Each structure stands twice: as C-alpha cells, then as structure tokens.
C-alpha cells in the first residue's frame, strides 16, 4: 500500500510545489500593498463606494473593513481560496481519471491489490499534497502579517480559525471532484472540469448576493467558508456542515463507484 502512496505522491509533488509557491507569491504581493490600503482606508472606501455594488460583491469587497489588517487579509484570502479550490479539484478529478486516460490503470489494476486500497492510497497521497500547500499558506500568512502589518495588531485566534478552514474547504473540492469523475463516463481533460466546478460554485455564491435573493448559494463552499464571516465572528458559519456532509457522501460514493467500475480499455 505504501508503494502506491509513494508513487502517487511523487506524481503530484511538482504541482504541489507550484501551487504552494504561487499561493505564497499571491500572499506576499497582496500583503505588501496592504499598508497603502490601511493608510488610506477612508479614501479607498469612498472610491469603492462609487463602484457598482454588483462588482464589489463579485470580488467579495462589499462588506470589507479595510482599516483592520485582518479585514484586508480576509479579502485577499478569497483569492487564495480560489487557488486552493482549483488545486484540490484538479487532484480530485485526476485521481483515477488520469490513469484511465493514459491507460496505466490496466497496469495498476492487474496487480495484486484491491480497488479500495488503491483509492485509499491515492486519497492519502492527494491529502499529503494538500497538507503541504496548507502548511505553506499557514507559514506565509503569519510571516506576511508580521512583516506588513503597518503597526496594527490582530487577534491570532481569528486568523487560526480562518486558516483551519482550508483543510475542509479543499476536501470538498477534492472529494466532490473524485465523485463526479466516477459518475461521468470519462474525464478526458481535468482542467475544464475543475475550473467548471470551482467557478461554478464561486458564481453560485455571489449570485444570491447580486440579485438580493438567498437561495442556492447555501450549497457553495465559498459561502460556507466565507473569510469575512469567519474573521468577524471568530467562528464558522453553521452552513459549513453542508460541506462536511458533501465530503462524507462523496468519499463513501467514490469508494462504492470505484469498486464497481468497469475500466475502459485502450482499444
């Protein structure tokens, strides 16, 4: 079982490093200009008030507190979330489909190992990758907040609660990705699927706000783990249980479907 895990981890390691570096860079760039915002909080708020409300909602800037350093961090964290979601969805959609598209599934499944163990090894490898990215985000968050705080203080507890949300947030995209990839006949290319899932759910979240009617956005993890909500309340939205349920159902469903799956052949 270790052998598959190691193999799978090596296969995604490069993308883990690229995603981690990208998100770290994003954090540094955004936080390095934070002082400009916080010094001119009033001006910025005035300026933003001239923008159409829908535009602000689309970028999660409608209820921002630019004066506080965590308020600014929360806005930027939304962009991190999009990256983290795409990364997790990529691993999810690719978990079994890449092998089936490149026909290496024939090699792996002809070996003396059960489907369940294959799935578990692959899941753990993906989870390890996500954990590394997670650690990088934690470290970069504390470092950038320490360096670019412009003298302002923040409550560590709120930051920790926010950062703890990364794991369940990514797990939703990972596991739902796996489930969808097993429900459709074939995932020929991972990117359109993961982009579709991430931006689909992102738009679902902002759509309700834009038209001023609450409905489907309760299904979006972007809503469940809304950074503003977490920072302001120092707690998770109870809607996050929907995400947890989605993870449990997706994992159970994925094992069930994979165990019964007919592996498509090359010819």
């Amino acid at each position, binding site marked *: 079982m270790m052998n598959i895990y190691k*193999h799978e981890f090596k296969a995604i390691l490069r993308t883990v490093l690229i995603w981690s570096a990208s998100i770290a860079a994003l954090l540094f760039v955004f936080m390095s200009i934070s002082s400009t915002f916080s010094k001119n909080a009033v001006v910025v708020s005035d300026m933003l008030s001239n923008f159409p409300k829908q535009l602000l909602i689309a970028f999660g800037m409608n209820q921002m507190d630019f004066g506080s350093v965590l308020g600014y961090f929360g806005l930027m964290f939304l962009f991190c979330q999009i990256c983290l979601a795409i990364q997790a969805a990529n691993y999810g959609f690719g978990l079994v489909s890449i092998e089936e598209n*490149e*026909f290496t599934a*024939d090699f792996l*499944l002809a070996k003396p190992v*059960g489907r369940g163990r294959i799935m578990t090894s692959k899941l753990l490898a993906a989870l390890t990758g996500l954990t590394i990215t997670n650690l990088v985000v934690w470290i970069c968050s504390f470092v950038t907040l320490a360096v670019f705080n412009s003298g302002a203080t923040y409550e560590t507890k709120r930051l920790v609660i926010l950062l703890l949300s990364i794991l369940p947030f990514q797990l939703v995209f990972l596991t739902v990705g796996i489930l969808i990839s097993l429900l459709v006949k074939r995932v020929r290319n991972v990117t359109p699927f993961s982009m579709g899932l991430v931006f689909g759910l992102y738009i679902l979240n902002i759509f309700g706000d834009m038209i001023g009617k609450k409905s489907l956005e309760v299904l979006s993890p972007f809503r469940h783990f809304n950074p503003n909500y977490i920072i302001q309340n120092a707690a998770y939205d109870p809607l996050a249980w929907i995400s947890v349920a989605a993870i449990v159902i997706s994992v159970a469903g994925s094992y069930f479907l994979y165990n019964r799956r007919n592996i498509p052949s*090359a*010819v």
Partner: protein
Amino acid sequence: MSIIEVNHLTKYYGKSRGIGDVSFNVEEGEIFGFIGPNGAGKSTTIRLFLSLIYPTKGEAKIFGKDCVKFGPELRQEIGYLPSEVFYYEGMKVLDLLKYSASFYKKDCTKRLHELSDLMELDLKRRISDLSYGNKKKVGIVQGLLHQPKLIVLDEPTAGLDPLMQHKFFNLIREENKRGATVFFSSHILGEVQRLCNRVAIIKEGSVIDLQDIKTLQKDNYKKIRVTATGLDEKSFQVDGVTALQKSNSTVSFFYKGDINVIAKLISSGKISDLTVEDLTLEEIFMHYYE
C-alpha cells in the same frame, strides 16, 4: 486441476455485447490458445479474468476461486501482458519494474534483471523515450518478473521483431516447462499453431469450437490437388468434399472422410501430379469465419 474455469461468462457494455455465455476450462500446465478476429471478445474475456471489468452474468474462476471476490489474492500469481502497453511516461524503466515488483510478496529483483538482460532492455531509459517494441519488452518483463503460475497474454507479439518474437516464445515455453499455465490470445494463427496445445475459437462473443490443436489440423480436412487427364470433377462430388474447383486439367478440393474412398476416385484418371496436405490453421480458421 483446472486453472481457469469459465462458466456462462457474459459481459454487456450497456446494450452492446462484449461476450455472451462463454464456457471453457484451461487445465494446469497447458498453453491454451484463444483465437478470433478483432472485436470477437478476446480482450473482454481477459479483462474479466483480471477484474478490470465485472461480468454481467456467469463467473470465471482462477485456481478454483472466483475472480471478482478473490481478485487481489489471485493476481499475486497471474502475469498479464496487455495487447496495448501503456506505462507511466515520466518514469525510468528500472523504476517502473521496481514499482511493479513491489506489489508481489516474493523478491523479484533477480528475475527482473535476468529477464531484462534476455529481452535486451535498457533499464536507464525513460518510458516516454521508448519505441513501441521496447515498451512491449517492458510489458513482458513486468508480466513475468514474479514467476506467475498463470500467464495471460493478449496479442503479445505485436510490435516485436521476428528475433524478439522467437526469444519471447522460447521464454514462454520455458515458463511453461517450469509449470506455468499460459493463456494465449491472438489473431495470428501461425503463432498459436507453434505454441499451443489446445485452442478455443471465439467469434462474435461466443466460443464456437474448442479442440486439441493436432485434432484440429490432422483429423479434419486434407487439401488435395490432382492434375490428371480424363478427370471429371463431377465425380468428386461425394460426401466430405468441399471447395471443389477445376482449372484446365487440375482439380482441387478439401476433403474430410475415408481416404480410401477419395483415393479410388483420384486413380480413375491418368495422374500427372498429386498433392495431399493438411490444412493450415489459417485455412481452417477461414472455414470457421466464412
């Protein structure tokens, strides 16, 4: 003991047929040929053995145990070479073979190197840099490195040059002498003829005949060609004669039956040339697929 027992094995892909109600046994120690044209269901049958796909109806047992329930345990002793080989492109050959070996309980290192030397495989190269034939060699080594009790070959020779084919056949014969049972699927009859003891012929998802390869050739048809004067081809229209043809003074036909009957008919003319041959497997095969 039967190594493979197939009972009413059926596989449908949605509504399209893979195989329908296939039954046969493969005995211990034999090289069993499985022949049929493309799309007849050869690969489907093999993929069912390996639980890459699951049966719609019926069952396949290997070493007396159900393929689906005991899949991982059974595959410890199965070596599989697919018709199309695909491996992780970014890996080096040695790493792939080591990865393959890591699934088996026994230590395969020695055999891995023996086989690679035999197949003249460069272990340092990347899979993505290999030609198709070389990938096939990787397939052969990864399929045999754990010295399996059952070797399943799905059209194994495609992409191998004649010299390598020869080496490969010798290797399979050696493995067979060592005690391995071989299930050999192919659409090339010559190689089945060279290697196998028994052969099942599959057509449109059903096994239409299963015979000893010698019986298939010897006890059946003779191909007869007579050149003689004063020969009336109509006199050859007796039971057992098929594909009767006459051009100039030469009559040719396939014959199955008492040789004495046909010998008398032939001797009725003045013979200038006569050939009597066994049918090649090709010709028998064409007969089945007419």
